[in-house]
């Protein structure tokens, strides 16, 4: 389900469509590809209106989450499929197709695998074949639907970096769908955040992280702590104490203050914005994450450097160093 939205994709960019499941990101991608049909609105490639162009003629490359390789064809046959499917007049010569397949196999670093069958390959290898198959037809835009969704964590990371490399080398306009914010922020030139069928925000990874336009975007881009606050002028107070966070003009009265786990600091109880007890803590990658039961009842996670340990049950105060203010 998609509502009215307008998305302008720049030539040569790598754009991520980011959103929770059910946000309409896959639907949008399929509409761009011509696999689904909008009730109204238009799809424009360059200066051509592609809304009524059937998928076969749209010249898009589509990579599916579950590869969708042709199991009865070898790797080389899979990659050559789009070229072989062309009408005789547009079809490159056999030698030319073979050369193109060879080049693409080099690009995806699977040169020795031309005669293998998909069932003999790992998930990561299959997805690379699927990408080569989509690139073989030299699409105007490459569309990737959760391309790494079915792969395990390590392979995901490798393939991410590798996809970025391929994009930098080919300059292929690429749109990819993901629900993984890390993936979107690491990989893309721009991120479009979708929620409930609406485009919430589009911008570079830095822009959306530094200036989220709504609490939805903010919450989706990482862990947040949500605190009731009062805005007066540009000042924001929590539990009567002034915070360094500035309220945008026009926002007055009861508001919500959102902070990232690393934007809070421990302080002596009685002098901080928030009060609570340490519930538990664990260390990971040089940082420690501490769960604090707030006096108001909610549990928050605070991230701090791994210097001193806080014993469970200890009363602590939390000072807010930075954050974002929204009406809801």
């Amino acid at each position, binding site marked *: 389900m998609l509502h009215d939205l307008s998305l302008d994709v720049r030539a040569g960019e790598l754009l991520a469509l980011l959103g929770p499941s059910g946000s309409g990101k896959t639907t949008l991608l399929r509409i761009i590809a011509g696999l689904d049909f909008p009730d109204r609105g238009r799809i424009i490639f360059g200066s051509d209106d592609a809304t009524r162009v059937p998928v076969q003629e749209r010249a898009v*490359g589509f990579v599916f989450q579950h590869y*969708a390789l*042709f*199991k*009865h064809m070898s790797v080389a046959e899979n990659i050559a499929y789009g070229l072989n*499917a062309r009408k005789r007049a547009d079809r490159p010569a056999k030698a030319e197709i073979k050369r193109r397949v060879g080049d693409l196999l080099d690009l995806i670093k699977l040169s020795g695998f031309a005669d293998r069958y998909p069932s*003999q390959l790992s998930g990561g290898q299959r997805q690379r074949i699927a990408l080569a198959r989509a690139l073989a037809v030299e699409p105007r835009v490459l569309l990737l639907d959760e391309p790494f969704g079915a792969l395990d964590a390590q392979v995901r990371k490798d393939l991410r970096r590798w996809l970025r490399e391929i994009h930098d080398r080919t300059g292929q306009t690429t749109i990819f769908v993901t629900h993984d914010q890390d993936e979107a922020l690491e990989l893309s030139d721009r991120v479009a955040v979708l929620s409930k069928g609406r485009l919430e925000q589009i911008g570079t990874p830095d822009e959306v992280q530094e200036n989220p336009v709504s609490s939805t975007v903010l919450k989706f881009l990482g862990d947040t702590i949500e605190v009731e606050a009062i805005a007066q002028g540009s000042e924001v107070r929590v539990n009567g104490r002034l915070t360094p966070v500035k309220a945008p003009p026009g926002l007055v009265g009861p508001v919500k203050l959102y902070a990232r786990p690393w934007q809070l600091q421990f302080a002596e109880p009685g002098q901080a914005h928030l009060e609570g007890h340490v519930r538990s803590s664990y260390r990971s990658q040089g940082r420690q994450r501490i769960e604090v039961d707030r006096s108001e009842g909610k549990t928050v996670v605070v991230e701090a450097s791994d210097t001193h340990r806080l014993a469970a049950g200890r009363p602590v105060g939390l000072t807010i160093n930075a954050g974002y203010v929204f009406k809801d």
Partner: protein
Amino acid sequence: MAEPPLRPRRRFRQPSVIPGFGITFGYTLTCLGIIVLLPLAALVARASGLGLWGIWEVATDPRVASALRVSFGVSLLAALTASVFGFLIAWVLTRYRFPGRKIVDAVVDLPFALPTAVAGIALASLYAPNGLVGEQLAKLGIEAAYTPVGIYIAMVFIGLPFAVRTVQPLIEEIDKEIEEASATLGADRWHTLIKVVVPPLIPAVLTGFALAFARGVGEYGSIIFIAGNLPYVSEIAPLLIVIKLSEFDYGGACAIATIMLGISFVTLLAINLIQAWSRRRFGYV
């Protein structure tokens, strides 16, 4: 001291965590022996009373040879027809949703369940020169009943469910994304169908073909009503066996049966080999 390397020894039984190989294998062989192999062995034993020369004489008897030709030739043709139409029926039943689909789906199985004589009588009355369809065909100069055409119709009728039921589950499993991938790569519907959709179904189509063929060769009840049973024209081998039996020529009957058994076995083996090859070819590694 190093332990002696485990020498890979070719063993009849492969190591496995699944228990019960011995008892299940023994049980299977016993049942197969008593239910399938024993009667067939008795048949061959009885026929061998005639000696190889005797069997050869029976096989080359013009009437027998013509009956065998009709039986196997028409079966192949009917199985081919059933495969094509069976594929289409299975395709329509799985790919489209329409009112009455479940009913049509159930009707497909009727030839399985119907007593063959009922089918024979129904077909004969329909295709006879004064029957509903036979009359129309007669106007076109086609005689269906009491000719090999009638045999063909009966065999297609009884073979069709096999052809439908073997491919249906595979068509159901076709991944929609495979077809979408083909479309995004620029292939038109026809190309997608021929290169992407149909090849993985071929092993199942061959299975259906083999089953329909085997059923056609063995069919008796529904055919004799519509075939007219004219010697040298529309007489099938199973009928000839019954005739021999009623003449108390048990040796001759067994000889024909043995020959049918041999030809059927060779044909089914050949189809199975083609199928095994196509499975490898189409990626069921």
